[in-house]
C-alpha cells in the first residue's frame, strides 16, 4: 500500500506535524503516515548565511523515503535558502516525490510578534498543500485565492486561501486517477 509520508527534519514540535498531516489527509486520497524524525544533515548548514540549503534537506528526505512512498514531505523549523535566494518557505521537486516546508518564517515570532497558534496552523497547512501540489505537477497559479499562488513574503501567504482553485483541483483529480492506475 503506497503512502504519503510526513517527516520532521531536525526538532519539530508534534502539533504542526499533526496539522500538516490533517491538511494532507483532507486533500490527498492516500494514507498519510509519519516517519521518525531525521537528523539535520550537517552539510545543509551554511555558516556564512546562518541558513540551511533546501536542496541538501530535500536530498536527505529523499534518502529516508520508504519503498512504498508516493510522496514525502519534510517539515523543518530551520530557515531555508538556496544560493541565489535570500530564503524559501519551502521547495519541491516538480512532479517528483519529495518536498520540504519550513515553519521558521511562518511563525509570528520570526517577525518579532507574539506567537499565534491558529495563524501558524493556517500558514503551515497552506504551504504544505502548496509544496505537495508541486510534487503532483502543479505550477504556480494565477488565482491569488489558490494555495498554488506564489507567495514571496508572509503577507502573500496570509492573503491566499487554504484551498486549491477548481482548475488546480481538477488537475490533482486527474493525477490521482492516474495514481490508481499505477497501483493496480
Amino acid at each position: 500500500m503506497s503512502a504519503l509520508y510526513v517527516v520532521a527534519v531536525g526538532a519539530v514540535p508534534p502539533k504542526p506535524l499533526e496539522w500538516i498531516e490533517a491538511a494532507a489527509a483532507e486533500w490527498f486520497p492516500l494514507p498519510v503516515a509519519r516517519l521518525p524524525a531525521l537528523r539535520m544533515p550537517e552539510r545543509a548548514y551554511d555558516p556564512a548565511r546562518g541558513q540551511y540549503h533546501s536542496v541538501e534537506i530535500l536530498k536527505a528526505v529523499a534518502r529516508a523515503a520508504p519503498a512504498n512512498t508516493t510522496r514525502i514531505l519534510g517539515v523543518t523549523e530551520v530557515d531555508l535558502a538556496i544560493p541565489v535566494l535570500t530564503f524559501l518557505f519551502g521547495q519541491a521537486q516538480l512532479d517528483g516525490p519529495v518536498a520540504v516546508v519550513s515553519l521558521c518564517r511562518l511563525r509570528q515570532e520570526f517577525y518579532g510578534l507574539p506567537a499565534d497558534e491558529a495563524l501558524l496552523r493556517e500558514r503551515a497547512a497552506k504551504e504544505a498543500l502548496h509544496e505537495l501540489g508541486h510534487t503532483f505537477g502543479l505550477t504556480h497559479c494565477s488565482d491569488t485565492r489558490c494555495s498554488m499562488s506564489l507567495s514571496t513574503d508572509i503577507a502573500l501567504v496570509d492573503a491566499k486561501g487554504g484551498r486549491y482553485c477548481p482548475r488546480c483541483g481538477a488537475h490533482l483529480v486527474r493525477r490521482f486517477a492516474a495514481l490508481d492506475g499505477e497501483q493496480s
Partner: protein
Amino acid sequence: MKNIWHILIVDDEEVMCESMAAWLREDGYRVDTAPNGRKAVELAQAADYAIYFIDLKMPGGMDGIDTMMEIRRIRPEASIIIITAYATVDTAIQAMKEGAQEYIVKPCNPQEISLLVSRILKLKKLQRENAILRKKISRQYHHHDLITKNARMEDILSLARDISSLRSTVLIRGASGTGKELVARAIHYSGDRAARPFVTVSCAALTETLLESELFGYEKGAFTGAGAQTRGKFELANGGTIFLDEIGDISPKLQADLLRVLQERCFYRVGGSEEVRVDARVIAATNKDLAQLVAEGKFRDDLYYRLNVIEIRIPPLRERREDIPLLVEHFVEKLAHELGKEVSGISEGAMKLLLDYDWPGNVRELENAIERAIVTCRNGKLQESDFSSLEGSIGRNQPWQVPDLPLAELERQAIVAALERKSGNVKEAAAALGIDRSTLYDKLKRYEIPR
C-alpha cells in the same frame, strides 16, 4: 493558458544551477542549465531562450561577460540577467553596459526575481504579439490569404483579378464563413485602388438609423448627441472600396438611399442639405438569396440589378473538401504561433474527421475548431480527441452536464422548461415529466411557479 517560456541558467556551481532551476520550474517555466559558457552557447544555438541567467564569475576560458557577448552575437534579442556576488557589482555594471538587461546580486529576494522575470516576459510577449500583428497586417493585403486548389475557387480568384481595376459593383454570394470579405479584399488590393482605403460595414449589425449615419455621416445637431459633423463610411472610402456585408438585411429606406448613391455617386449626410460626391467602389455581400427577396418584394429590384453587375458565388467548404488539408495546415501554423503553443501538425485520424465533417459554418468554423483544438492539445500534434466538440455535432451525443444546483432547484427548472415547451399546458407538461397532473399542481404550488 500559460505560455511556456524557456529559461537558461549558466553557472559552474551545480547546486546553484539546480536550485534556481527547480525554483523557476515551480513557476511553470521550462528551464535548462549549463555548467559553462561553451555549453551555454551550444544550447543557445540549438534553441532560443526567453531569458538567460548567467553567473558573472566562471572558471575556464569564458567568464559571464564573454558568454553573454557570444550569446548576444547569436541571439541579438536575448534578455540576459547577470548574477553576481556583492564583491563583483562593479563588473556587473560593466556587463549592463555591454548589453545585459539586468543584474541580480545573490542572494536575492524571491519577490525581486519573480518581478524581474515577469517584467521581462511581459515585454517579450508584447514583442511577440507585435511581430504577429505586423505579419497579419502585411499578409491581409495579399492574394495568397485565399488558400485553395479547388477549380471553382481558382476561377473566382482569376475573375477577382480581372475585375480588380474596374469600377463596377460586385455582389458576392456565399454562406457565412466562406470568405466573402477575403474575396472583396482580394479584389480591392489587386486593383488600382489598392493604395486607397478599404472600408467594411456590416449592415446587419446596426439599426436603420445607426446604419444610415454610419454610411452617410451626419451634420452637427442632426439628432441628439450629434455633437460635430461626422463623415460616413462612404466618404471614408472615397477613392477606394466600400464593402457592404449582409446587404440583404437593409431596410427599404436605406435601399432607396443606396440606390441613389450607386446611380448618382452622391448623397446627403444625415441632417445635411449639401450634396456630397464620392468615388467609392461598392462591393456587396450576402448569404441570402437576393433574387428570392426581390420576388417576395423585400428587396428593390432596381437596387438588385445595380448591385449584381458582377456576381461571384463562393462555394461552401463541403463542396471544396480538397481545400481542407491546405486550410488546416495554414491555420495550424498561424494559430499555433499566435497562441504561443508548439503544435506541429495533425494526426491522420483527426484529418479524416475534419474531411468527413460537413462544416455548416464553413472556413470560419474550421478555423475556430482548430483554434480550440490547439488550446486543448497536449502533445504537439492535434488528435481526434482535440476535436471532440465537433464529434458532438457529427452525431455522437455529448454528455449532458448537470448544473451544480440543489435538487429542488433542478426540479423547479425542469418543471418550468417542460411547461415552456408545452406552452403552459399542464396536462402535457405532466405527461412529459412522467408524473400525474395533481403531483405537478402540488409542485407548482410548492415552487411558486406562476402560470
